[in-house]
């Protein structure tokens, strides 16, 4: 009997609260997808160097998932509260008929169980299905292909989803039991008749609060623009605090402000149902302003994480060349036994089949006498070493006469050494007619900046060797070459490298950057989607529950002869205002925030911000717009059910 009751209740809730179920299902689905990354990556032919990255990413996802679960828990509790409120009358009937509170809690428990199981199963099925797409997506990051379609299923993620959502539903059950044990029959019976106490603020107060909110927001924007998100200093926190306060005040005063403004324009106020709609919003704003503020901030986070994720993606794409001019760079510091690269190459020779061109180059420290005005390191390179390096790219060798040098100043903004230097007491002339090799310049920039002067070979003798480098362009298959040189380095290590070395390959760097990109994009999408769904769902649930509170009002309007079109428009306007105002403010917030983030990102590389914003807008339009439409339809349906009763 109780099971039947519970089951019927759920079936009815299914119809009324499509959005509640959708949100639960989406939540489970996304939770599963992003936690199944581990299983996804195993399928792909990801190089071992990348495995660690995936491990880190999986760990980050683990931590994030706790956070996401907390957000979803709040969302589900919030939604549950609305469901409970809607059913006060039903609970009152059970109590009135003498059903003990324990039994009522039992019914609710069963209901939560049924709802939970249902959404869990649907969500997981959807998740398993959609996560197949994730494999393809992840594969793109590593530029590998899924050679053969294989159905991926992550048992770990499944168990985790069940565990986390199990805990959430357990919380919901506790919450329900608590609220049943605390409710009084008289309150339940009168719940329908009790109106929200209308606290109206005077015109002056509304306007004052509104202006205050604008000032607060303005100050917050100024702080963050000035701070540039470079440091978490007092200015940054001031911006956050002022922004939050401004946002809350904005929503607190907006409806009153809007009402007064429209009221002063009688033509607008008395047109259609404008008066009714505005009053509707104003009457609920005392409870709605907080959730609207929270939604606004969540939307800001959504827009922020999405476009930063996308923007980062764009920014990182082409920068590999800037970091790694050669396929392989190996730098070794002088030791007791071997001094420079050539000694090592003699000890462990390289298989030249994998080498297209290569060069070795020695860097010496020199004490130059030049008025430089800064403290950058100074290196000396011999002409023959330089020519070797330049020859890798087919550049003609340079020949420096006595008393001449070639300055290389790779870091922009440093004073170039083209005014002449004093070398061992003698004045030297700069050959500014020669352009330094571009890859070599990039390499030096990556080594930490510093200036290089190329001197004739004889001038270099007797200087202290700082380090020496081996630069290689691969021949043939990149991965094979990479694997070969991995082995070569291992041989060298077995042989013994005393002075310390550093090895960088373009491929490793590229994969590292891709990993970074994957991380940012993954986190951005995960959090973005969760925040977006959460905010849209909060608004939708609020509107739907409000619509059911308003059923009698719409019924009255119908009796007075308002036609369906007008009522539909009034409902749409109301829902539209609730959805668009927080979005609008969030867009303004993020416009300011993204200006700052854009400046940050350009330091990572060229970013195509427009594309990332368009991408974000598209996702927003689909998810948020979808929720908006579903809410409008749901509200219209609810407003209609009353009149048919």
């Amino acid at each position: 009997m109780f099971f039947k009751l519970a089951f019927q209740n759920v079936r009815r809730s299914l119809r009324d609260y499509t959005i509640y179920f959708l949100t639960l299902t989406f939540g489970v689905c996304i939770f599963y997808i992003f936690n199944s990354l581990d299983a996804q990556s195993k399928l792909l032919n990801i190089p071992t160097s990348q495995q660690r990255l995936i491990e880190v990413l999986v760990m980050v996802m683990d931590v994030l998932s706790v956070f996401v679960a907390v957000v979803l828990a709040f969302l589900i509790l919030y939604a549950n509260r609305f469901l409970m409120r809607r059913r006060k009358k039903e609970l009152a009937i059970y109590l009135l008929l003498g059903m003990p509170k324990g039994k009522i809690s039992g019914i609710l428990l069963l209901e939560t169980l049924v709802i939970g199981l249902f959404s869990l199963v649907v969500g997981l099925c959807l998740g398993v299905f959609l996560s197949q797409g994730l494999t393809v997506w992840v594969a793109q990051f590593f530029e590998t292909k899924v050679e053969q379609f294989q159905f991926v299923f992550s048992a770990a993620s499944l168990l985790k989803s069940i565990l986390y959502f199990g805990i959430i539903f357990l919380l919901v059950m506790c919450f329900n039991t608590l609220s049943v044990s605390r409710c009084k029959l008289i309150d339940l019976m009168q719940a329908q008749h009790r109106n929200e106490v209308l606290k109206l603020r005077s015109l002056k107060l509304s306007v004052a609060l509104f202006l205050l909110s604008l000032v607060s927001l303005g100050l917050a924007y100024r702080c963050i623009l000035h701070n540039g998100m470079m440091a978490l200093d007092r200015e940054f926190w001031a911006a956050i605090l002022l922004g939050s306060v401004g946002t809350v005040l904005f929503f607190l005063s907006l409806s009153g402000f809007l009402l007064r403004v429209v009221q002063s324009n009688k033509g607008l106020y008395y047109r259609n149902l404008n008066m009714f709609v505005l009053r509707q919003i104003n009457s609920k704003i005392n409870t709605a302003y907080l959730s609207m503020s929270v939604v606004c901030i969540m939307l800001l986070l959504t827009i922020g994480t999405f476009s930063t994720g996308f923007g980062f993606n764009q920014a990182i794409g082409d920068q590999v060349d800037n970091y790694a001019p050669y396929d392989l760079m190996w730098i070794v510091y002088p030791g007791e036994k071997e001094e420079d690269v050539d000694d090592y190459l003699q000890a462990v020779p390289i298989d030249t089949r994998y080498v297209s061109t290569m060069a070795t180059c020695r860097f010496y420290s020199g004490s130059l006498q030049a008025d430089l005005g800064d403290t950058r390191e100074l290196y000396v390179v011999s002409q023959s070493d330089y020519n070797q390096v330049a020859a890798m790219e087919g550049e003609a060798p340079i020949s420096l006469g006595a008393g001449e040098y070639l300055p290389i100043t790779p870091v922009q903004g440093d004073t170039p050494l083209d005014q002449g230097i004093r070398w061992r007491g003698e004045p030297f002339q700069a050959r500014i007619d020669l352009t330094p090799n571009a890859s070599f310049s990039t390499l030096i920039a990556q080594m930490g900046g510093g200036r290089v002067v190329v001197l004739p070979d004889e001038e270099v003798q007797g200087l202290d060797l700082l380090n020496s480098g081996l630069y290689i362009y691969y021949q043939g298959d990149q991965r094979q070459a990479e694997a070969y040189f991995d082995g070569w380095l291992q041989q060298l290590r077995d042989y013994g490298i005393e002075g310390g070395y550093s090895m960088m390959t373009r491929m490793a760097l590229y994969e590292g950057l891709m990993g970074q990109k994957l991380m940012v994009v993954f986190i951005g999408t995960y959090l973005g989607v969760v925040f977006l769904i959460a905010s849209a769902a909060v608004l939708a649930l609020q509107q739907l529950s409000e619509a059911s509170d308003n059923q009698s009002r719409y019924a009255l309007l119908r009796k007075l002869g308002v036609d369906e079109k007008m009522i539909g428009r009034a409902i749409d306007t109301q829902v539209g205002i609730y959805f668009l105002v927080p979005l609008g403010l969030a867009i303004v917030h993020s416009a300011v925030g993204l200006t700052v983030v854009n400046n940050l990102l350009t330091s990572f590389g060229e970013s195509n911000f427009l594309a990332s914003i368009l991408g974000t807008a598209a996702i927003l339009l689909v998810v948020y717009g979808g929720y908006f439409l579903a809410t409008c339809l749901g509200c219209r349906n609810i407003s209609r059910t009353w009149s048919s009763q």
Partner: protein
Amino acid sequence: MAQILKVDRVEKYYGNKGNLTRAISDISFQVEQGEFLGIMGASGSGKTTLLNCIATIDTVTAGNISIDGKNVTALKAGELSAFRREKLGFIFQDFNLLDTLTARENIALALTILKTPVKTIEASIKDVAEKLGITSILNKYPYQLSGGEKQRVACARAIITRPALILADEPTGALDSKSARLLLESFGTLNRDLGATILMVTHDAFTASYCHRILFIKDGKIFNELIRGASTRQEFFQRIIEVVSLLGGDSSHVF
């Protein structure tokens, strides 16, 4: 006198084949312009069903209802709401004011639905409010008003569109006797000074005594008709009581 309402052999059934309930069976009557007609009957007699049919909120099973020369039973669903807002005014037992709007806005709502020019709205509200004595409470919210005040605001909302017919469903049902008296006097004002045609459903003899004519309904049929004529309200009240006791006195059938 023009005929405002013509109810012609109206029948209304509820339920399905297995379980058919006849709420109204073969009722016919007419209401002239400027009349103040009461419909009395016990709970379940079908009076509210009849009112809902006239109000175009419910549909009849058979028969015709014409309001202001228009057969409302033949109107399509889309035309019904337009008809309601143009021709009918409503007063309900539970006031049915929108609690989010002030009294003034509640009254204005009826006009904005009709898309009345904005300029005339405030003037006509002022006009009606003066007649009903609610000028001082226009800026208050329903929760700040007493039941009688709320009902007079509802009256103002019903009359402001100058409807052909005002339908009142147990308007005094939720009022104390003093407020009820005040309200009924307001009805008199509407009827006399503003020329409103009023159709009121009630089961209270005192409330009914303010009408010009009363139809008694029992088991979905017209049982009796009383016309006040030249008699005082006191005398009319006595006559109503007599009919009511006759209406309730079914003892001979029971025993």
